[in-house]
């Protein structure tokens, strides 16, 4: 018998529906497409918005934090410094804010038809990777311009660490998804968090070295911000592309371990909530 399903109470606490997700891969791709396409339907500039947002943010940061507040960028041209920092951060905040409301926004759908619920946040994670790729392209364009045509570009030295880029992107996606799953499971029950999470993301950005370099923190205390996995992700992006960052192997390992824990705990919590959440909404 090709299809056999058993439904019973309280399945094992760590139940990864890998086979089921594989069965529903067509749905996954269609959802990725929907997420990407529907977002900018009936807009004049369409997918250009994926690019405009980080560019405008970089402009604001340059004016506010570089020109007015004069926060150091470790000698890196400020536009490159912020663009590079925003690369990982934009992906995180967008993926987090969408996945963290998975249960609440999809309750009408989840209440009517079964499919592996993990498909929905997974599709968001993947469709945001497309936006990430666009941003990466823009950043590389700026990087090439600064390197080739300006003297300020001399401070920038892309390193061979760039070979680890795929791994760093996996860590970034796993972290954003893991935290999003956590919060989505909690908001399914406690709606307080929907109000809190948008605010927390804002605060977390200041706790992550997006607008300042980690080198501003005394060396003895750098492990503390590194507990936030986004800290080392952002710093490692800078190390790869700009060659100027505080990214020791120890801090990176710490960050990776935290990411793995968040990811696994997020999946466990999500799967636990998935089973009966429809009784509580």
């Amino acid at each position, binding site marked *: 018998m090709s*299809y056999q399903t058993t439904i019973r109470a309280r399945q094992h606490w760590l139940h990864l529906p890998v086979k089921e997700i594989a069965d529903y891969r067509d*749905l996954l791709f269609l959802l990725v497409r929907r997420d990407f396409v529907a977002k900018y339907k009936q807009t004049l500039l369409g997918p250009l918005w994926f690019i405009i947002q980080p560019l405008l943010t970089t402009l604001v940061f340059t004016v506010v934090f570089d020109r007015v507040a004069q926060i150091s960028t470790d000698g890196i041209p400020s536009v490159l410094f912020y663009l590079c920092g925003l690369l990982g951060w934009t992906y995180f905040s967008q993926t987090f804010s969408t996945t963290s409301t998975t249960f609440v926004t999809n309750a009408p759908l989840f209440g009517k038809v079964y*499919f592996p619920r993990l498909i929905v946040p997974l599709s968001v994670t993947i469709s945001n990777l497309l936006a990430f790729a666009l941003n990466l392209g823009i950043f590389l364009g700026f990087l090439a311009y600064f390197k080739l045509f300006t003297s300020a570009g001399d401070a920038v030295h892309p390193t061979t660490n760039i070979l680890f880029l795929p791994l760093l992107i996996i860590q970034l996606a796993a972290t954003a998804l893991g935290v999003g799953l956590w919060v989505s499971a909690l908001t399914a029950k406690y709606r307080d968090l929907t109000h809190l999470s948008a605010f927390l993301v804002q605060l977390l950005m200041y706790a992550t070295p997006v607008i300042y370099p980690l080198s501003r923190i005394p060396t003895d205390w750098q492990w503390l911000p590194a507990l936030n996995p986004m800290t080392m992700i952002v710093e490692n992006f800078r190390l790869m592309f700009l060659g100027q960052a505080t990214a020791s192997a120890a801090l990176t390992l710490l960050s990776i371990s935290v990411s793995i824990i968040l990811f696994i705990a997020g999946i466990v919590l999500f799967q636990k909530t998935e089973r009966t959440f429809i*009784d*509580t909404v």
Partner: protein
Amino acid sequence: MSQSIIEVRGISKSYQLGSIGATSFSDAISRTWNRMLGATEGAQSFEALRDISFDVERGDVLGIVGSNGAGKSTLLKILSRITEPTAGEITLRGRVASLLEVGTGFHPELTGRENVFLNGAILGMKKREIAAKFDEIVDFAGVDRFIDTPTKRYSSGMSVRLAFAVAAHLEPEILIVDEVLAVGDAAFQRKCLDKMKSVTSLGRTVLFVSHNLGAVSSLCTRALLIESGRLTLTGTTDQVIQRYLNSGNRKTDCYSSASEGQHSQIVNAQTRPAGGTFGEAIKCGDSIDIRVDIQLPHKSSNVKLGIGIDDANNNRLLTAHPDCDPDFHLKPSSDRIRLSCRLERPGLVEGTYSLTFLLMVDGKLEQKLEQCMTLEIAPGDFFGNAGKHFTGRFLVDQTWSNETASLSPRHTVSV
């Protein structure tokens, strides 16, 4: 292949009564605090389903019958994996698709074409399966001119048709259907029923929940009766429907007032087939007695009682009223009167109707009981032809004749 396609073993489901679990942090904290102080949990649990077990064989079309709140929908939700049982185990040997609502997951910004694929995938179809059936689906829905228009520009009828077309072209081994036939107009409902019939004739296994007993009896081969969360009967559709109609557990087939007041009110209302006992099942073709006990604060000879009969779509089919019987005169009586009304073979087809009562005393509206009880009409033999009747909502006694007359040429044109 001797194994059943669906095996249900000891399924129970309980819910927390009251506010379902803690819904905010402060609530969670106060609950935890109370528990630490040794207080017992205030919320009681409610068992929506208790120890349900049954088997479904390949090719069965199984109806699930029960009154509102009996637990039918909970059972379907568990079978379609939307929620988990509290105890028990179910084995499903085949691909399952559940149709708990038409049009689940349509995205208004996407075109009809994109939505067909997305909706099909949500229902568990593979992309190539959808592609293979795409033309058929669009054709069935009749929206081919608009297939590349965003569905937000569709009329609601078009969306529903397209959504049903996708669902109707699913090819699962097990299909779970809940009340989808309740949407749309009469023509659309008939189209749904026809499609359901053709699906079942292909040997699929179908679980079907509906309040439309006519649909259940025409589609299903076997049925389950669920009463207050328990499975009380498994049998042929006729047996189960008969038992359901006769069961005294249903609170809705009669009315009793909750309060003892001094004001004018209807105390009690019951129905029976003429010549039968109260509470007995009424079949299509029976005359119906409706008996209503009324309490009055003082004697009155001006009491008017209107009895409205509505169909499942809330259309008022008829109103019975004492003024409709010129021979009727109310006897001036004490503070409690009993009115009986006989509807002579009302010609209602089988189905569920509801009764509305309107009480006027001395020209003043005293009470309106909107659809306070149901009137269940079971399949029966109206015409004396072994129960045969044709499409329509009403049955009327008919006299047919056949004369041999010389047929004059029609349309004679005179100049």
